[in-house]
C-alpha cells in the first residue's frame, strides 16, 4: 500500500499523476466554463466524469 504514496524517496507516481491530473483538470474546467455557454451543472457533471475516468485509467495503468 505504501507504494501508492511513497516510493524510493519520492512521491509515488500514481499519487503524483493523480494530483497533477486533478489540478490541471480544475484549471481546464475553469477555462472551459468561461468559454462555453452550457449550464454550470452540466459542466460540473462532465468534469467529474472525466476526472473519475482519468483516476480509473491511472489506477488501471499502474496495476
Amino acid at each position, binding site marked *: 500500500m505504501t507504494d501508492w504514496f511513497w516510493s*524510493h524517496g*519520492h512521491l509515488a507516481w500514481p499519487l503524483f499523476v493523480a494530483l497533477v491530473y486533478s*489540478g490541471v483538470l480544475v*484549471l481546464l474546467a475553469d*477555462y472551459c466554463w*468561461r*468559454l462555453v455557454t452550457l449550464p454550470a451543472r452540466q459542466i460540473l457533471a462532465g468534469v467529474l466524469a472525466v476526472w473519475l475516468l482519468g483516476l480509473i485509467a491511472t489506477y488501471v495503468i499502474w496495476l
Partner: protein
Amino acid sequence: MILIVQLVILACLAVALGLCLLNFPYPSPLVRALLPAKKRWPELQIRGWLKTERFHPGYLKFFYRDPARFPAADQGILAPADGLVTSCDVREGVRYMVIALTFWDMHTQRSPMSGQVVSVDPLGDAHTDGEGRDFAFLREKFCPVQTRLVIDTDSGRVAVRLITSVAARRIETWVDPGETIERGQRIGRILLGSTVVLEMPQDWPLTVAVGARVRAGETVVANAVVAA
C-alpha cells in the same frame, strides 16, 4: 532529485489553483490572455471598477487602444464610433443615429466627413445619468454628460455628440472650432462612455439599419445628398 522536481511541479500547480480561487468568479491572470475580450473582463467586474475607480491596467490598455482605420474610398458618411446602431429616429428634420458602445468597443471617435469644425460644446455637465437613448441627450436640463461637435461640410452640417454617464464623466476632444478636419480623422474619445450620436439631415439615405454593428472611420452609414 525526483522529489524536488515533483514538489516544484505541485507548487506551480498550487499557485495556479490559488490564483484561480483568489480571482473567482473572474478569470485568473493565467487564463485571461487566452480569453476573448468580453470574457477576459466581464461586465460585472468592470462595473465594480467604475465604483472603486481601480481599473485593471490590462483593461485600461485594451480600452485605450486606437488602431488605424482605413475609410472606404467612396464619399459616404462614416460611422463616428464603433458600436451598435440602436436608433435612427428623425426629429424636426434631423436624423439622430445613436451608436451604443460597450465596454469592449474601441472608444476613439472619428469624423464622419471632411469639413470645418464649427463648434465644440460641452453640454449637460451635472445632471442625471443616462445612456443617451430615447432622445435623453436632447433634453436641455436633464441630459447626460456630453460634448457636441458641429462640422460644416460641402453637403451640409453634421454634428457628433459624445455622450458619457455621470459615473464616467470624462470626454476628450482633439479638435477645435475653426479647424479643418479630414474624413475619418480622430476627433475625440469618451472615457468609459456609452453613446455616440450622429446628427445629419433626414433626407440623407442610410446605408445601415438599426441593429447593425459599425466601425469608426470605416463603415459608411449614409450617403450625403447635396442640396440643390
